[in-house]
């Protein structure tokens, strides 16, 4: 059941976008998100959508996979849409359709919902084309300057990668515990909401205890392999910016410029 669970939804293939430096992708995602929030009209969002479509085309990831990411926040999107529709502050000159629904309210709600959808789709392009490991490396490298103010960047990155590494292990263990409890008559699928939440306790406690035991053993294994924090530590994998990254950056700069221009002229 939980066997296939992997963090994120990395889509393994080779493409221009896959080969980009994870730092480039992270920074460009930030630029993309900023531009979505800077855009205050549909033209700006259309430009962002165009950018997204081109990025997906270059990533060799099926568009369907990108679209699927919206599914998980569908509820949030609908909720936002309805709230904005119902509580739109009516101004003079707005055309009322019926009750308190206005054309302008409809447009504004659609705008905000599209913004959310674009945001999630953009982020999923990053997670679909970047392995969690290289994502962690990218974050570590980007946060590096913070280590000068004694921020534990290396430790944070290590925690993240260990957490990622243990997801399949813990998922497997959860699966095993559920089966063990079911074999003893445990019931997780019937009863009301509270009853089901309560039924999770016999799963969570063994899982938690197991995680502590694992942490203890992992600590020993790390000690045995000479771990001593970031002190004079080298790194085997080095991230490198290439020509590709420059191209992608220019391309994104065009998007940001486009959105700003559209904001000024419309």
């Amino acid at each position: 059941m939980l066997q296939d669970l992997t963090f994120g939804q990395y889509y393994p293939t080779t493409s221009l976008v896959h080969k980009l430096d994870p730092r480039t992708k992270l920074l460009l995602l930030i630029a993309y998100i900023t531009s979505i929030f800077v855009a205050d009209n549909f033209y700006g969002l259309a430009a962002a959508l165009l950018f997204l479509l081109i990025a997906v085309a270059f990533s060799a990831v099926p568009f369907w996979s990108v679209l699927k990411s919206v599914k998980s926040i569908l509820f949030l999107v609908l909720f936002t849409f309805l709230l904005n529709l119902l509580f739109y502050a009516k101004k003079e000159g707005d055309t009322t359709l019926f009750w308190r629904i206005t054309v302008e309210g409809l447009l504004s709600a659609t705008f905000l919902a599209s913004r959310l959808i674009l945001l999630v789709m953009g982020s999923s392009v990053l997670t679909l084309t970047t392995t969690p490991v290289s994502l962690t490396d990218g974050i570590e490298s980007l946060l590096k300057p913070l280590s000068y103010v004694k921020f534990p960047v290396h430790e944070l990155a290590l925690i993240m990668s260990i957490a990622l590494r243990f997801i399949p292990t813990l998922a497997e263990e959860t699966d095993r515990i559920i089966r063990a409890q079911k074999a003893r008559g445990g019931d997780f699928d019937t009863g009301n909401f509270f009853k089901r939440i309560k039924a999770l306790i016999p799963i969570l406690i063994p899982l938690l205890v197991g995680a502590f035991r694992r942490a203890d053993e992992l600590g020993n294994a790390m000690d045995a392999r000479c771990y001593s924090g970031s002190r004079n530590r080298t790194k085997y994998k080095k991230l490198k910016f290439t020509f590709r990254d420059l191209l992608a950056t220019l391309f994104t700069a065009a998007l940001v410029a486009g959105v700003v221009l559209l904001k000024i002229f419309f």
Partner: protein
Amino acid sequence: MQAITFENVSYAYKRADEEFSGKAVDGVSLGIEAGRSVALLGANGSGKSTLAKLINGLLLPDSGEVKVFGMPTVCDDPNGLFDIRKRVGMVFQNPDNQQIASIVEDDIAFGPENVGIEREDIGRRIDAALKFTDMERFRYSQISRLSGGQKQRVAIAGALALEPDILILDESTSMLDPKGRKEVMEVARSLNKEKGMTIINITHYMDEAAEADEIYLLKAGKLLKKGTPDEVFSDVSTVEECGLELPRASMLAAKLKAAGINIDQKITTKEGLAEELCKLLLKD
């Protein structure tokens, strides 16, 4: 040269709720020559894993002294322990709890990265470690998708990347299927024979112990007997006192002897038993 020496070493776990409240290791003295293959045998709670952790300083002795190539595990130099750990690789019991990274090559790089090896050199060490453990085609694989035996071989490769002189297997085969056990033992054997690495194998399996150069028998934290497999396994009463069973071949030999057949008692392997029986048959 002595790779490991224990001088009257004792250690007790400091936990009030520990069911076993006595000393986990109690006044043990021993000396292991470099290049030997040694098996540590004992029932559960006999202190064999504690003994292993005392070697590379994961635990420090309450009294007595542990030395690795002449370096004591308790010393004032904060880097002293790292010098020891660089020379003592350790592979633990649970294949799932000793990898730090998700990908094989990243995990093997962890040790060399810790001690500040240059990048090119790390690459070379990964190549060599993967080659020796026969895991080359899994270099870019997800560790979580490997079998238990393969995970343990990755763990060995991770230890090898630090280029140690001693490898400790702390019940490393106990959670594996027979195939995985065989794979791991083959790697350990060739490390000992080809590279002259000192191997300390802590195990429950008597047939693994029978392959070692020498066996240390532990009971309740005390060293009960030391000797070659032949010597140890012919002392049936001591082995049984430790709560252990003889290897199948030795067991059969002992029973045949009891039944009045004149067979050599110092038999530890299937092959040895077969040979001895053939000899007996030819004699008749």
